[in-house]
């Protein structure tokens, strides 16, 4: 769930380099907007708007607050070279809350999207 679809589009497409898969207006307002990672076109991530056409004003306030606080961390993105990916994302203005750190399962960094959702970025050891 995102706070602003235009801003989210800019983040996922321009900063993360994802491709918009479906982008159509919804009858009730907002867009049905999905993106997918390059090389994985069959997995779509829905950038669903938190707005009054979908939820009550109460829910919108509740959800927006939680999203901004970084309540939701919904995915792990893996990459081949975490340092190259990290440097490129940083150069494009992505905010990281954890720099690449060696863990027992691999090397992991954590970044946030423009709404506050956080994601793990990981380079897993080669099998």
């Amino acid at each position: 769930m995102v706070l602003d679809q235009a801003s989210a589009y800019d983040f996922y497409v321009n900063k993360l380099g994802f491709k918009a898969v479906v982008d159509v207006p919804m009858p009730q307002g907002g867009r049905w907007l999905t993106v997918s990672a390059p090389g994985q076109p069959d997995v779509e991530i829905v950038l669903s708007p938190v707005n009054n056409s979908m939820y009550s004003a109460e829910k919108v306030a509740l959800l927006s607050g939680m999203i901004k606080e970084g309540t939701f961390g919904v995915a792990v993105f893996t990459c081949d070279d975490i340092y190259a990916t990290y440097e490129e994302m940083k150069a494009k203005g992505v905010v990281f809350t954890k720099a690449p750190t060696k863990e027992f399962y691999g090397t992991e960094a954590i970044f946030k999207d423009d709404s506050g959702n956080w994601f793990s970025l990981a380079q897993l050891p080669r099998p």
Partner: protein
Amino acid sequence: MGGTGRAVKIGIYRKFGVYMEDNTYPKMYLYRRLVQAKLFIDNHYAEAIDLDLIADEASFSKFHFIKLFKNTYRRTPHQYLMFVRIQKAMELLGAGMTVSEACYAVGFESLGSFSLLFKRAQGLTPSAYLDQQQALKAEKAKVPLRFVPGCFAESRGWITK
């Protein structure tokens, strides 16, 4: 070419100052130089890029640069440049641009080599790809809701079973 060289130098040096040193890791500066070179290709693919100049500005010997680049990005700088150009050409063709317009827009200087490279990379000629994309668009325009999951649309009362 001298003008381009100066622009590259300024571009790369300016970027180094942009972010603070939070923590360092081995090879950090090496990665940054490599990433800057890659981003340069991403941003200037439509121009006549001199890859020797990029290697130079990143302070690598040409051989070292190609090797490091390939290790990180699975393609040599030249292969990566071709890859970016073909990807952008596909986007332009998808948007309805003609084959020759797309060819020159992404920085190729010869229609023949563009078509050959495109076919080798994508399995079909640029014109065939263009026709395919037009057909796909026509189909989508007819039934827009088809690409929205049914249950989502249903729960909101847009369609009824």
